[in-house]
């Protein structure tokens, strides 16, 4: 493989995620801190799952045991996502209280999307670190490996592309999840766990000969679709209402982007209900 392959795989698997961080989160210190804290939370969650399945590792290499593994793993992550929702409510309430004390405007819809993006980014990043970055240094060496079931794509390539799809799916899914819950849109909120579970179960197709030729494109398509849906929701929610310019300077001083808010769906009411 070598340096060229390593760099290529790194950009392939983590480039878009890094783009999101640099262009959407890095300029706002609060979001960076939130992403770091959230990443620690997701790291603990994945460690918990690892510890749980340590007792059974390695599993019999057949789809049966892996279905159970995937179901439990996704379930635990989705339960952790509920924790994210609770923390999101708490953080929004605290931020609104601070804004009120400082005679600032409350969190805008764009602010809330920024928070959701930070949560989603951290989930995707930790997932990538766990399943991709952990072994990526091996790609610096000369060797590669192909599965007998997937002679068309190397393990490294499949890993990078799958990570790309899953990172997009998890990041976008979190945005949809939090926005759906805020607006009490169960269908939208359910998209996140549903697509997560579907993507996880989809990887079972890797057991089949040439299965990777289906799973990799489908994961990429799924990730792109979920990310596009999240982006579309963000666009709709932030551009279909008059812009609120008040408090721009003070909000920037807190490191939280000031962007148009929406009266539709009344997120403050949702926050209250969430208490």
């Amino acid at each position, binding site marked *: 493989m070598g340096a060229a392959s390593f760099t*290529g795989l790194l950009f392939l698997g983590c480039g*878009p995620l890094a783009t999101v961080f640099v262009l959407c989160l890095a300029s706002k210190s609060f979001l960076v801190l939130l992403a770091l804290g959230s990443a620690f939370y997701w790291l603990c969650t994945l460690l918990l799952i690892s510890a749980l399945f340590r007792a059974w590792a*390695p599993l019999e290499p057949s789809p049966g045991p892996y279905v159970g593994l995937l179901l439990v*793993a996704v379930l635990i992550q989705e339960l952790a996502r509920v924790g994210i929702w609770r923390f999101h409510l708490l953080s929004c309430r605290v931020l609104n209280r601070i804004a009120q004390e400082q005679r600032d405007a409350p969190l805008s819809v764009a602010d809330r999307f920024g928070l959701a993006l930070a949560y989603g980014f951290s989930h995707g990043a930790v997932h990538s670190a766990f399943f991709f970055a952990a072994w990526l240094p091996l790609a610096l060496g000369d060797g590669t*490996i*192909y599965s007998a079931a997937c002679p068309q794509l190397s393990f490294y390539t499949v890993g990078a592309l799958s990570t790309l799809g899953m990172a997009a799916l998890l990041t976008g899914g979190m945005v949809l999840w939090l926005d759906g819950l805020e607006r009490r849109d169960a269908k939208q909120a359910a998209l996140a766990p549903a697509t997560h579970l579907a993507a996880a179960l989809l990887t079972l197709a890797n057991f089949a000969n040439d299965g990777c030729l289906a799973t990799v494109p489908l994961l990429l398509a799924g990730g792109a679709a979920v990310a596009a849906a999240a982006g579309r929701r963000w666009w709709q929610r932030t551009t279909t209402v008059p*812009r609120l310019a008040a408090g721009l300077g003070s909000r920037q001083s807190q490191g939280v982007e000031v962007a148009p808010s929406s009266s539709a769906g009344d997120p403050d009411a949702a926050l209250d209900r969430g208490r």
Partner: protein
Amino acid sequence: MRRQPQSSRSTGRATPVAAAAAGATMRGLLRRALCCLAALAVLVPAVQAQSQITNVKDLKAAVYTEMTFTGGSGGGDACVRLLNASGTIGCATPSRQRVEGRLQRLDTLLPSPDDYPDGTTFLLPPALLAGFLQQCAASPSLASRVVGVLVEPQPPPSYSQAAQAPLAELALYADRSYPWNPTGSGLIGMALPFPVFLLDNVTTANAQQRAAYNADQGMNSDLALNYARMTLTMDATGNSSACLDAQSCLPLGGHSVLATLPPLPPPANSSGAPAGAPTAAAAADLPALWVLAQVDTAGLFHEAAVGADAPVSGLIAMLAAAEALGSGNASDAMAAAGARYQRRLVFAALAGEPWGLMGSKRLLWELSTAPSNSSLAGLGLTNASLDGVLEVNQVGRARQPSGTVQLFAHGPAGGPPADFLAALQAAAANSSQGGGPASVSVAAASAATPGLPPTASAGSFLRVGGPSVPTVLLSGFNEAFQGSTFHTQYDALKTIYADSIAATAVVLARTAHALALGGGGAAAPAVPLPIDYAAVRVTVDALMQCLLNSTVGLNCPLAKRLMTPTAGGKVSHYIGILRTLTADPQMPEGNVKSDVERFLWNFLAFATAPTPANTSSSSGSSSGGGAAGGGGGDAGGMLRCQALNATACPAGMVCAGSRSLPAPEGLGYCLNASALSVHSITLSTSPCPFLPEGLGYCLNASALFVPSYSLALRCDACDGAKTLYDYRWKAANETAAWEQQYGWPPDPMWMESNWPLGTPALTLYLKEAPATGWALLASGLAVTAASIAVTLGIQWAHRRKLKQH
């Protein structure tokens, strides 16, 4: 010298990356979980691996197959560079860089050297190795184009790796080309400018799969292909003199082990001799009958060569014979008849003989020099007392399909001495006594043979002692070596027979007994040697397990009772390098004397020490030599001792059986006044009456270490003043006159090259075509650039939309 890679893996059926782990502590949990990427198996694909992959280390092992260099039977090994006075032999990479080549299996040799592709590592069955290397030797252009050679371990080929006339320069007859080893290919003597590795079984299966994959790809360099990456850097170049000057090599060497029966008297000026011990005057004038066996073997792959038949079968036969001769039964019979040996039996396990008869040559030089300069100083052995030589070698396959054990007596040109031959035949005729095999036969070697094989150590004694010294090599071959395993890794335990060795041991013991009593010829000895064949067989089985079973090695029960191995019990019959000598040659330091040497020394000490019960009646010229004197001991009043304490025992005694670790429970010595022999150790299964705390016993035995290394070398300041790793070898010429006197050919001065850490190493892996890496880089950059462009575009559109609002 040998460095071992950490793991060996192979690929096999497709399995998924599996679930992972967590440690007991948070730190361990984090590390494991980060490494155990497969915890969830959410996105990872199936990979090819024999065992499931649970962490990054497993994944790395699946990507890179690294061979472990264990040596021994069935283990992987590398051909390494040796140097002698005229040049180099063995293998090395052409430069200090590691090399890699596409893996291609050869099913047959190609007719022309030009037909072989460039940049290739060839995977060969053993049958093709000799032919391929001979093609390389004949075509320097081919040799320069070959990246490396990997040799499969099986099936055994029909050739030997030694020359057809090995050590011909040492032959004592005119026709030096006589093919004692008719299947010899001479591979051992080749100098190869590329690495040659012997694969282990696991790596072989892996390499064959990888080579088959390459063949399926048509060896197309535009596709991913399997490569072999090899590290075999050798520091030494030129010849042994050059590398000695550059300090880039170390001499081949070790220690021969001697033991005498009866024991030698203590030096005349010593004090504290044990009660009943003979005086020098009483015993020093006994002529010596030497019973020889060789310890080491050779091969293209040094550590893989076991030498079961040549020479270890002979070594085991000699050890078992020594035990039978030194047993309590034998000494009791001697004492009852009032008989005494007229010749002193000297058992010699000679080290380094495949390398120019290094061990026997050095021993004879030591015997020939003034006692004050010799490792045998003050011990009364001189070559003036040389009164006969009985060597035993290659007797593991003497059993014929009919069940007869057929042995042959080789002697100097003209045949073996008549009295020795007659004594051997008489001993063979009595083989059934004591429960021995019904049919053992000893015949003179064919008249077609020109004389003693030049590989025989007895030839060194004949050269120095002159034709008047009766000399016999007892072996299982007649006109030529049996089979094609001489000096190969295929001369293994499963190719020899224990009953063949045991029968030889009995014949050897009876013959030595008869000759030592002063008889000889076909006449029965005055005191028949009582032999329990079953006990001999038990000893032979135990020795085969210790010296030839690579799985057990010196972790065998017998060795654990005698000493503590320092190399994990691993047995090597390659002499290896000699870093230094001890100031006192008899000090059994584990970092100077090998485990095998210390095992042989302890075995022979116990085998030849008289039992305490016979002490009072023994004399210097009888079979017993006196027991441990002094009080404060146990087990029949024997003194306990620490082997590394030079003054642990009274003069004339040795400290044997000392261990740095206590023996396992139930494996300690069961010494008492009536049982002190290797036999009692071998058979002991009952709990011992006292704790085996690791101390040795002072035995009235004469067991000696004699250094074995080139006579052209001198160890400077080998007095313990320098550390073990200081270089202290210099060229020497003190022996030139002596060598010239006896017509020795120029000393080969065998040395082994140094090599850096991480050598040797062999890694098999699948390598992408170069275009793939660039394609991946382009794809990654494109995806990242696209994501940047899309994000910036959306942000720009978003801001514009907001402005519109």
